[in-house]
């Protein structure tokens, strides 16, 4: 669909960032790779400001939790270049003990609430964020409910047990 091929993007990014970019794949044509948190700010700025790439639109920021992995928390960025009509997905994996990552609010104002939502549900600390508070949950909640260790319902409830359907 886009004017820039994923192959060209990969070459350009690996030439600049080399080892910092890994696990490159293209599920359903959407270029996906992992980056480290040391380069993420620079990488996002490069993608946004590069004359050729121009990933000017931040579609989404969200996170994912893989409890069995060493770096369990993943922050996932979806960027979109309106000029080339290309999307890109960047993941940064962080350890649960130190889930800090630089904010993207300096590049896109819209990142503000997306990062607040990610903080609210996964506890990712976006350093440099102007107003990192909970957004959808109550202010005095002490946990980050979208992490896998928190069950959907209170596990002590007995009235809704359903042994046959695995819930």
């Amino acid at each position: 669909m886009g004017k820039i091929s994923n192959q060209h993007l990969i070459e350009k990014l690996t030439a600049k960032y080399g080892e910092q970019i890994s696990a490159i794949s293209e599920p359903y044509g959407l270029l996906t790779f992992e980056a480290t948190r040391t380069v993420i700010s620079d990488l996002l700025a490069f993608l946004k400001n590069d004359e050729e790439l121009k990933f000017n639109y931040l579609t989404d920021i969200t996170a994912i939790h893989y409890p069995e992995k060493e770096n369990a928390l993943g922050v996932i960025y979806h960027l979109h270049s309106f000029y080339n009509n290309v999307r890109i997905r960047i993941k940064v994996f962080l350890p649960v003990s130190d889930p800090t990552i630089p904010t993207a609010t300096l590049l896109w104002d819209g990142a503000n609430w997306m990062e607040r939502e990610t903080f609210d549900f996964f506890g990712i600390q976006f350093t440099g964020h102007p107003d990192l508070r909970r957004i959808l949950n109550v202010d005095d909640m002490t946990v980050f409910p979208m992490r896998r260790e928190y069950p959907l319902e209170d596990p002590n409830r007995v009235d809704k047990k359903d042994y046959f359907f695995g819930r």
Partner: protein
Amino acid sequence: MGNFITEITPNRPVYTDNDPQGELTTLNLGPTHPATHGVFQNVLQMDGERIVSGVSTIGYIHRAFEKIAEHRPFYQITTLTDRLNYCSSPINNMGWHMTVEKLLDIKTPKRVDYMRVIVMELSRIADHLICNGILGVDTGAFSGFLYLMEEREHIYEIFEEVCGARLTTNIGRIGGFERDFNEITFQKIKKFIKNFPPILKEFEALFNRNRIFIERTSGVGAVSPEVAMSYSWSGPILRATGVDYDVRVNEPYASYQDFDFEIPVGTTGDVYDRFILRNEEMWQSLRIIEQALEKIEKEPKGVFHADVPEFYLPPKEQVYNNMEALIYHFKIVMGEVETPKTEVYHAVEGGNGELGFYLVNDGGRTPYRLHFRRPSFINYQMYAPMSGGMLLSDAIINMSSLNIIAGELDA
């Protein structure tokens, strides 16, 4: 568990530092104010009638859809998407089904695509009707709203004919529809596209060149395209600023590439532009529906779903009388079907903008992670900053024209 709430902390003070003389009034607009059409709270600092600053508080109807979705098989997630933007739930339902189809690499027949296009464009019209009608009410013009509500009723009757429900439709299946459009459906759609244009014309005649309406709305909430894109706006409000981004064109889904239609864009991005743009989009939607009806005639009759027995729920009569259908029914309901371990992002153009589904699948019964990119949530974050300096009454119509739906905002 049971340790979620530890102690009640007092509410955060709002910008106490920019009012050393104590001259400003703090005003709680919402959470249940009749002028805000939903559960929105904005704590505003007012200088007379003018807003100095404000803070939005959201989350009043947060229902943890993303968490629930991690515990439900694909079909049961459709009902969650209904409750995102409940003014145009068929778009959400089909957006979700198309996400799963993309994950499973299912090709739907053209006729299914055209049927989907008809239903989605009808819901887009219903969504825009609500928004523009309410905008009229907020500016003090009640009659236009009443004309339009009758037409929305006709759209809901079509939905009722297609799937049996009106508001939270739960329409369609993975791979297509649960049943074919019947004759009455086609009659109702044809009747609608015949009767709706004069009413929309009359509505436009009431508003478009109405001096009171223009003076009330033009220049209110004007946004430059750079700022709008920086705030990740999408949908009609982004196009009103002059950016021609529409998912239907940029990444066509459901065979939108087969249709001849235009993407209207505005120039100033103010409330008046958004109003005009939504009206124009309704005309374009009508064009698309007319073309889709023509195209459906040329497709083989009676095709209303793709041939994917492992994912398409079989009809109930067959489940009771046919062994294979029973097996498939069981496998689908129990989530026993193999699915690829990968991730997919699919976006559709919802009533308010780019509605995205980010699905990470681990091959299990339920998604490993499902994230909704909800346009209302992302569009709304600019509301409080842009309200600074506005009159209170302007902020009200600005919120109406952003068309923020509380269900989609809080998810």
